[in-house]
């Protein structure tokens, strides 16, 4: 037997295991990951309620704070919040 044929046979013997199969839920999992996630009506109300209450509480707590300090605080905290949100989304999507 030629050397190349022997090597060929050895490789066939070494890799004789049954090839793995994709799990049957593969398609469903992919479709779940690509579908846009929408909040339920209850979730939307909850978020809206939080925004209203948090804004009112923040306005009341900061009533004596100078406007320049509020602007500075927003300039620092908003970019950080946007960055953390984007990073969290990337992790959740598996990038």
């Amino acid at each position, binding site marked *: 037997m030629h050397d190349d044929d022997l090597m060929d046979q050895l490789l066939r013997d070494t*890799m004789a295991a049954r090839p793995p199969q994709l799990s049957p839920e593969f398609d469903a999992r*992919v*479709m779940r990951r690509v579908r846009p996630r929408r909040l339920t009506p209850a979730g939307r109300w909850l978020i809206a309620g939080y925004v209203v209450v948090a804004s009112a509480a923040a306005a009341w707590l900061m009533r004596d704070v100078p406007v320049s300090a509020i602007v500075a605080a927003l300039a620092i905290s908003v970019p950080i919040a946007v960055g953390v949100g984007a990073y969290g989304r990337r992790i959740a999507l598996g990038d």
Partner: protein
Amino acid sequence: MGAEQPPYAEQADERLVDRCREAVDEAAFAELVRRYRGPVFRLAVSILGQEFAPEAEDVAQDVMVRMHRALGSFRGEAKFGSWIYRIAFNHALNVKARVRYRAPHVSDEALATTPSSDRSPEDQLQDARRQRAVQECIAELPEVYQSALRLHYWLGTSMSEIAAMLDAPENTVKSYLHRARQLLRAMLAERGFDAR
């Protein structure tokens, strides 16, 4: 009324991509997933190795999600298949770099042929050692050789499909396999094994 569309299964990849982009057509995307999930999984498992099949499934899933998000940037300069195989190849290599030191799910020995009862225990032991040495030598080959070997010998993929997955002409794939066998023979000889 517009012209009637052929069923999704009969439409070209590029047409399905257009449908996904223009109308966010979930059925068109599902058809692309159905077409490419198997080849992408095989390509991933050929890179990660026999013992990391669950990670290969994760890679295939990530590739499908990335495909969905990147469809807008697909310009059609390359074939859709080449584009998605390139994403899969690169992602599988990244995952391999992360998992290579992790304990495998299945040992190499469990993946080789089961010992035949008509051979003596010494011969069976020698076969097992040789097969283990082959597995170790394969892991030292360049990535593209490893992938071509596993696709051909283990996963039974056709030459034309391997060529598409590795984005190389069929003759180049044949030369990868020939060169890989030559290298393996030399590496086995260094370890005191022959192919017999």
